[in-house]
C-alpha cells in the first residue's frame, strides 16, 4: 500500500510541475498577477510530493520491502541500515528520483530567496524550472518507476553493488547532483530573460550567486567521486577520463567559463549574448551527462539500441531543451554589442581568452567522449579514446589559461596597468624559477616534477601578489570583499591542484609484489613488511585481511590492513588500506593468494595526492564565498540606483517594466 502512495505522490508532483510550468509563464505573458503568484505555492506543493515519494522509497529500503522491485534489486537482509540510505540512489530509478528531489530543493530556494526579483521575471524562472521538473518526473514515471512491484515478493533481495558500499557513495551523488542540477537555475534565469526580452544585464547579477553555488557543489562532487575511486577501487588513480567522469567534467568547465563571463556582464555590461549561451550550454551538458550515464549508451551502442526507451526519452528531452533554448536565443538574444569600453590590455581580454580555452577544453572532452560512440554507431571501426588523448590535449589547452590566470586579477577592468604587469610578471617568473631551483636542490631531476613545482608556484605567487597589493592599497575593511576572497581561494585552488596532479603523476611509485609472511618489499625509501593474512568479518562481508608494517630507516610509520572482501552474492571487493599524509599517501592493496601463504600485494607511494582534492575543495570554497558577497543581496530599488553610467537608465527601465 505504502509504495503505491509514493507512486501517487510522484503523479501529483508531475501534475503540479506541469501547472508550475504553464500558469506562471502564461501569467507573466498576460501580466496576470494571480497566475504569476501561483508559481511559489506550486513549487512548494511539488517539493512536498517529491519529498514524500523520496521518503517512501527510503522507508521501503529501511523496512526491506522486497515487493518493490527496485528495493529487491539493490539491497538484501544483510545490508547494514546505514547503507540502506545511499542504496536509495544506488541505481538508476532512485538516482533519478534524487535528481528530481534536488531540482525541487533548488526550485524551493529560488522561490524563497527570489522574492525581491521583479515579479514577472521570478514567475518565468520558476516556470522554466517547473518545465525541467516535468520532463524528469515524466521520465521517471514512464520509463524508470522506482515503485514498480514484483509479486510474489522475493524472500531476500539481490545486493547493493559492493563498490558502492562505501562512505564515499553517501557523499558523491547528492553533492554532484547539487552541482549538475544547480545549473538549471542559471539556465532558468537565462531563459526567463530571453522570454521576457530582458536583454540588459540585470538578470546576470541575480543569477551569479546561483551559478557560483552550483559550480561549488559540482567541484565538491567531482572531488568526492575522485577520492572515492582512489580509495575504493584499489587502483590508486584519481581520474581515468572515463565517460562517466567526463559527463560531470564538461559542465564544470563550462560552468567555470560562465562564472567569469557573468562577472564581465554584471560589472561591465559586455559579453551579454555569450553569457546567455554559456548558461544554456552548462545546463545542456548536465542533461547530456545524464543521458550518457543513464541511457546505457556507454556500455555499448548496441545494448543501447536493444533497449532504447530510456535513452530515447532523455535524448528527446535534451533535443527539446537544447533546440528550444537555442531557437529562443536566436530569436531574442541581444544583437547589439554593449558594455563599457575596454583596451586590448585589460581584464576583459584575459577573461575572454580564459573563456575560449575553457569552452574548447569542454568541446574536446565532449568530442573525445562521443567519438567512439558515433564511430561504433556508424560502423567505421571501433576506437578507444582515453587518458593519453585527453591528458595531452587538456594540458596543451590549459597552458595559456594558466599563464594568463595571475594577470587577470592584476589588470583593471577596461585598461590594465602595463607597468604593473611587468613588475608583477618579473616577480612571478622569478619566484617560479626559484621554486624550480629549490625542487632541484631537494632532488627532483626530471622535467615533469620541476614543471609541477614551477607551474604551481606561478599561479600561487601570482594570486598572493594580488592579495598583498590589495592589503597595501585598499582601505581596511574593503580589502577583500567576499566575491574577491572567493576568487583568491579558487585561483589558489588551481595552483594547489596543479602541484598535486603533476607531482603525483611524476613522483608516484607503484609496485606489484609477491610476498611471503615475514618478507619485506622496498619501495622508494619505504619498507613494507608483510605479516600474513587473517580472516575477518563485517556486517555483511567476510574478508581476508593482510597486515603490513610500513617503516622508513627502521622506524615504524604505520601498520596497514588491506582487505579483500566477499559479499553475500559472491562479489569480491578490495579495500585498500591508506596511510594519508599532507605530503604523501602510503597505500597497500591486497591481491590474490599465490600459494604457501604467499600473497600478491600492490604497494604505492603517492606524494602530494591529497593536494589534488585540496585544490578542488579550495575551488568549491571559492564558489561559495563569492556567492555570499553582499553585492548579490537584493534590494529592489537599490539595484537600479547603484549602477552608474549608461546601464543605469536601462536598468531602471527594466525594473519599472517588471514592477
Amino acid at each position: 500500500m505504502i509504495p503505491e502512495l509514493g507512486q501517487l505522490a510522484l503523479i501529483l508532483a508531475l501534475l503540479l510541475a506541469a501547472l508550475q510550468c504553464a500558469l506562471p509563464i502564461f501569467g507573466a505573458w498576460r501580466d496576470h498577477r494571480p497566475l504569476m503568484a501561483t508559481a511559489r505555492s506550486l513549487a512548494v506543493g511539488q517539493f512536498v510530493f517529491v519529498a514524500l515519494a523520496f521518503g517512501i522509497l527510503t522507508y521501503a529500503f529501511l523496512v526491506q520491502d522486497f515487493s518493490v522491485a527496485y528495493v529487491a534489486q539493490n539491497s538484501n537482509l544483510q545490508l547494514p541500515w546505514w547503507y540502506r540510505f545511499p542504496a536509495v540512489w544506488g541505481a538508476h530509478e532512485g538516482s533519478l528520483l534524487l535528481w528530481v528531489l534536488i531540482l525541487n530543493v533548488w526550485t524551493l530556494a529560488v522561490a524563497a530567496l527570489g522574492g525581491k526579483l521583479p515579479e514577472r521575471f521570478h514567475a518565468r524562472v520558476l516556470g522554466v524550472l517547473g518545465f525541467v521538473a516535468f520532463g524528469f518526473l515524466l521520465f521517471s514515471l514512464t520509463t524508470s518507476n522506482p515503485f514498480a512491484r514484483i509479486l510474489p515478493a522475493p524472500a531476500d533481495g539481490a545486493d547493493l553493488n559492493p563498490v558502492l558500499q562505501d562512505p564515499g557513495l553517501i557523499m558523491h551523488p547528492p553533492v554532484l547532483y547539487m552541482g549538475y542540477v544547480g545549473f538549471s537555475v542559471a539556465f532558468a534565469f537565462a531563459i526567463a530573460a530571453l522570454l521576457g526580452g530582458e536583454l540588459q544585464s540585470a538578470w546576470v547579477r541575480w543569477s551569479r550567486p546561483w551559478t557560483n553555488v552550483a559550480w561549488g557543489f559540482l567541484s565538491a562532487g567531482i572531488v568526492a567521486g575522485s577520492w572515492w575511486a582512489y580509495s575504493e577501487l584499489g587502483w590508486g588513480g584519481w581520474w581515468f577520463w572515463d565517460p562517466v567522469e567526463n559527463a560531470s567534467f564538461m559542465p564544470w568547465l563550462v560552468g567555470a567559463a560562465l562564472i567569469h563571463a557573468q562577472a564581465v556582464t554584471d560589472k561591465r555590461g559586455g559579453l551579454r549574448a555569450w553569457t546567455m549561451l554559456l548558461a544554456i550550454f552548462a545546463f545542456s551538458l548536465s542533461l547530456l551527462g545524464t543521458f550518457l550515464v543513464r541511457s546505457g549508451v556507454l556500455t555499448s551502442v548496441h545494448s543501447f539500441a536493444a533497449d532504447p526507451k530510456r535513452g530515447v526519452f532523455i535524448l528527446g528531452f535534451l533535443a527539446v531543451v537544447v533546440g528550444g533554448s537555442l531557437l529562443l536565443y536566436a530569436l531574442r538574444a541581444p544583437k547589439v554589442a554593449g558594455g563599457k569600453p575596454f583596451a586590448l590590455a585589460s581584464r576583459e581580454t584575459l577573461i575572454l581568452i580564459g573563456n575560449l580555452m575553457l569552452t574548447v577544453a569542454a568541446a574536446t572532452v565532449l568530442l573525445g567522449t562521443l567519438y567512439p560512440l558515433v564511430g561504433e554507431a556508424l560502423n567505421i571501426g571501433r576506437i578507444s579514446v582515453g587518458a593519453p588523448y585527453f591528458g595531452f590535449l587538456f594540458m596543451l589547452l590549459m597552458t595559456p589559461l594558466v599563464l594568463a590566470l595571475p594577470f587577470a586579477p592584476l589588470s583593471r577592468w577596461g585598461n590594465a596597468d602595463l607597468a604593473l604587469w611587468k613588475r608583477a610578471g618579473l616577480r612571478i617568473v622569478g619566484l617560479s624559477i626559484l621554486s624550480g631551483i629549490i625542487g632541484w636542490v631537494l632532488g627532483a631531476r626530471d622535467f615533469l616534477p620541476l614543471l609541477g613545482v614551477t607551474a604551481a608556484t606561478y599561479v600561487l605567487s601570482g594570486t598572493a601578489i594580488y592579495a598583498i597589493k590589495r592589503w597595501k592599497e585598499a582601505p581596511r575593511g574593503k580589502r577583500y570583499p567576499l566575491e574577491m576572497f572567493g576568487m583568491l581561494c579558487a585561483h589558489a585552488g588551481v595552483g594547489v591542484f596543479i602541484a598535486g596532479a603533476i607531482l603525483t603523476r611524476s613522483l608516484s611509485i607503484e609496485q606489484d609484489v609477491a610476498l611471503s609472511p615475514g618478507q619485506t618489499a622496498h619501495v622508494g625509501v619505504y619498507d613494507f613488511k608483510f605479516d600474513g593474512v587473517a580472516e575477518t568479518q563485517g556486517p555483511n562481508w567476510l574478508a581476508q585481511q593482510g597486515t603490513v608494517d610500513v617503516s622508513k630507516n627502521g622506524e615504524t610509520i604505520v601498520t596497514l590492513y588491506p582487505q579483500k572482501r566477499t559479499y553475500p552474492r559472491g562479489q569480491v571487493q578490495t579495500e585498500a588500506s591508506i596511510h594519508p599524509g599532507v605530503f604523501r599517501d602510503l597505500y597497500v592493496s591486497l591481491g590474490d593468494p599465490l600459494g604457501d601463504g604467499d600473497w600478491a600485494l600492490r604497494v604505492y607511494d603517492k606524494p602530494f595526492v591529497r593536494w589534488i582534492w585540496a585544490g578542488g575543495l579550495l575551488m568549491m570554497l571559492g564558489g561559495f564565498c563569492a556567492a555570499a558577497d553582499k553585492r548579490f543581496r537584493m534590494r529592489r530599488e537599490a539595484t537600479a540606483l547603484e549602477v552608474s553610467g549608461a546601464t543605469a537608465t536601462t536598468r531602471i527601465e527594466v525594473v519599472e517594466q517588471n514592477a
Partner: protein
Amino acid sequence: MKHALLLLAFALALIVSVAAFAIDPLPFKDDAQRQRFQHLTSQLRCMVCQNESLDASNADLAKDLRHQIFEMMQQGKSDAQIKQYLVARYSDFVLYDPPLKASTVALWFAPPALVIVGGIVVFVLLRKRAKPAAQIATNEMGDDW
C-alpha cells in the same frame, strides 16, 4: 565469427566481473622496465571490460596479455612493436591513444581548429571593440576590483 566470440567473451566477462584491481607481480629486470611496462599497459584497453586499461583489469584475457607483453619486453621488443602486435590482433580498439588516420582526423584536429577559429573570433572582436588605452576615460575604468 571472431566478432561473435568477442561478444560472448564480453557477456561472460560482465557476469564474472570482479570489482578488484589487477595485482600482478612480475619479475621485472629493473625499475625502468617496470615503469615502462606500467606506462604501456595503462595505455592499452582491456578488450573484455567496459572501460578499463590492461594495467587495471582483472579479467583473464587482460592477465594473459599482460604476461605476453612482459615476455615481449624480455625479448627486447620496443613499445611500438608490442602495440603493432596487439593492433594486428585486436584492431585499433585496443589503443587508448587513437592513431591518426582518416577516421580520426576530426578527433585530433577539431580541438586545434576550434582554438584557431575561436582565436580568430576573439581577435576580430577585440580589434573591433577594444579601444586605444588613451581613449578610455578614467571614470570608465573600474577600480582594481
